[in-house]
């Protein structure tokens, strides 16, 4: 028993030294300022590498000599090391958000002219946010962009998801000629790279004078999206046929069946698709960039981009980023389960 614990302490120490070794190897990419640093890194590197090599060699020799031991680590130690690694990863994920948050609260002088520190030196202020609200030089504002984004997304969200779910119902339960042909074509369509349509959609919209309006952003979404059709079709195919036959015998037509049976059953999936579509719309950058020229029509992402190009003040840019991230963050944290489940299912995993 004692040997087992000792062996597992050694394994954790070795894992930590492996992490340190990787870190020092990574540090050799950078140019050291003076010789002291350079030689420290080199000595650390070589010694850690020697320890690890020795451990691997001795582990192989030991394993051949002593057959009876079972080689896995003691669970408590593994969990501790896992926590350490995961905490480090969390740190890497969270640090950029923390930086944005801190920068948006700092005073203008501290954010732009002093070196970056983790704590606030000149007192917290919301001047950056006030600046954003009162910034009207460029003809648009971040809040206007946010409003625009929400407004433009209303029609594609409702109509698009409605038509997609109707279509999914049709593919799942209804019969008509050519159903499988159309379905195969749609399957094929999902694999096409989207880049070929980039230039020509702009060309076509320009020839019918739809550029500089919101129509290119709103209209395609209203027809429904093929991904949603596939997702919901799987869902609707699980509805038992007897239910539908019973409703038909009672005299319900197709649409009535859809509204009274399919929609309630498919509600979680439809809500998930609504959320995911909204997230896609909110984060869309290239579309609004190409088609909107009037500053008043800008969506949030485009407004943020041009806003950051216009000012050089870091705290104001950070405040703008916060304004664009926080709504999405709130939506994600509240609806976390639906979003992750929707993404998992649509990439083929069950549950």
């Amino acid at each position, binding site marked *: 028993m004692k040997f087992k614990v000792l062996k597992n302490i050694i394994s954790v120490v070795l894992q930590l030294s492996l992490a340190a070794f990787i870190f020092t190897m990574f540090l050799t990419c*950078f*140019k*050291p*300022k003076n010789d002291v640093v350079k030689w420290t890194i080199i000595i650390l590197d070589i010694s850690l590498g020697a320890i690890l090599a020795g451990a691997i060699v001795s582990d192989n020799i030991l394993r051949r000599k002593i057959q009876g031991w*079972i*080689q896995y680590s003691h669970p408590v130690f*593994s*969990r501790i*090391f*896992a926590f350490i*690694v995961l905490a480090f990863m969390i740190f890497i*994920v969270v640090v*950029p958000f923390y*930086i944005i948050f801190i920068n948006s609260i700092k005073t203008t002088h501290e954010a732009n002219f002093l*070196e*970056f520190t983790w704590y606030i030196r000149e007192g917290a202020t919301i001047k950056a946010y006030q600046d954003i609200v009162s910034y009207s030089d460029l003809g648009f504002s971040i809040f206007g962009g946010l409003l625009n984004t929400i407004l433009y997304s209303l029609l594609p969200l409702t109509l698009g998801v409605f*038509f997609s779910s*109707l*279509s999914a*119902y*049709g593919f799942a339960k*209804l019969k008509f*000629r050519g*159903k499988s042909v*159309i379905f195969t074509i749609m399957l094929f369509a999902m694999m*096409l*790279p989207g*880049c*070929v*349509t*980039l*230039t*020509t959609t702009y*060309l*076509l919209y320009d*020839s019918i004078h739809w550029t500089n309006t919101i129509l290119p952003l709103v209209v*395609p979404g209203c*027809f*429904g999206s093929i991904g949603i059709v596939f997702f919901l079709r799987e869902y609707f195919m699980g509805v038992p046929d007897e239910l539908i036959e019973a409703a*038909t015998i009672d005299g319900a037509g*197709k*649409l009535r069946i859809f509204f009274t049976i399919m929609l309630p059953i498919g509600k979680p999936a439809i809500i998930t698709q609504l959320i995911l579509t909204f*997230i896609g719309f*909110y984060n869309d*950058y290239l579309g609004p960039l190409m088609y909107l020229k009037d500053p008043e029509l800008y969506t949030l*992402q485009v407004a*943020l*981009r041009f806003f950051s*190009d216009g000012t050089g003040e870091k705290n104001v*840019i950070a405040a703008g980023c916060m304004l664009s*991230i926080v709504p*999405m*963050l709130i939506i994600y944290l509240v609806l976390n389960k639906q*979003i992750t489940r929707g*993404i998992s299912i649509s*990439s*083929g*995993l*069950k*549950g």
Partner: protein
Amino acid sequence: MEHQATLPNPKPKKLAKKNSSWDRFTNALITIVPFVGFMLFMLLPMTVSLITSFFEMHSSDFSEAQFVGFNNFISLFSGEQGMITLKAYRTTLIYCLNVPISMIIGLVCAYFLQKIKKGRQIFNTIFFIPYVCSVVATSLIFKMLYEENYGILNTMLSHLGFEKVSWLTSEAMFLPSAIIMGSWSGSGICILLYNAAMSNVDQSYYEAAKIDGASDFKMFFNITLPAISPTSFYLLTMKLIGSLQVINEMTVLAGNSSGPNGIGNSVVLNIYDMINIRLTEKGYGIAAAASWILALFILIITRVNFRLAKKWVCYDF
């Protein structure tokens, strides 16, 4: 009373029309709305794109187009434009390195996530946050991180005793910076999918391996990796196709220019410039030709990917 001599349940009129052609027609009508949208907004532009790639067009007036045959395709690869095209492909292919990096990060995080039991949901939630943040916000955040004098990375490096690195202003470091940013935001979905896939692996495999005396590493490489290879394949395909068409990260990271010495010029950014800034010089025709060449490239890579997949993806678990 005489009515009892007739059939007890006469068929209602509605059921008699069940398989009629009108019925089928309305079925088709409500089902093909997204398909109509696909035809209008994807198939139609694609055919027009194919046709215009043989013309030279400098405005959206279709009557002004001149037929040039294969000249567009040839001029994409000759002379100065050829150098730009090759450089753009090089940039895009180097940017695609963020795909294996984010997959490896996802693997490592999912491996350690499997070892802990309680905090898994919280870790999953936090890891996925970069994925839902928009490209613009992420790029602005990283622009602040990478800033030469006041950015956090350079301040930390100088405290540790290293010289400051010009992340976004030097030609050598621009693409690695973009790759780091791409893998930061792209790891979220890798962790999510790998975690779900690893949870679905049958535990009896691991128990049998432990009895046979396998170490942790051996179990990981011989059981876990093959078991989650379908997920790896899906992630690789999707992310590769997305990374080959990168444009958003490059525009925002580089500001208004296309990176130091033009190295931030990815293929799609090149195409977008052709219709935006350099319309009179290049035009819609050559842009369409360039986008079809990229589409061909993507199709070839996807085909190679599928072919190679037969060797390392196992669906038997």
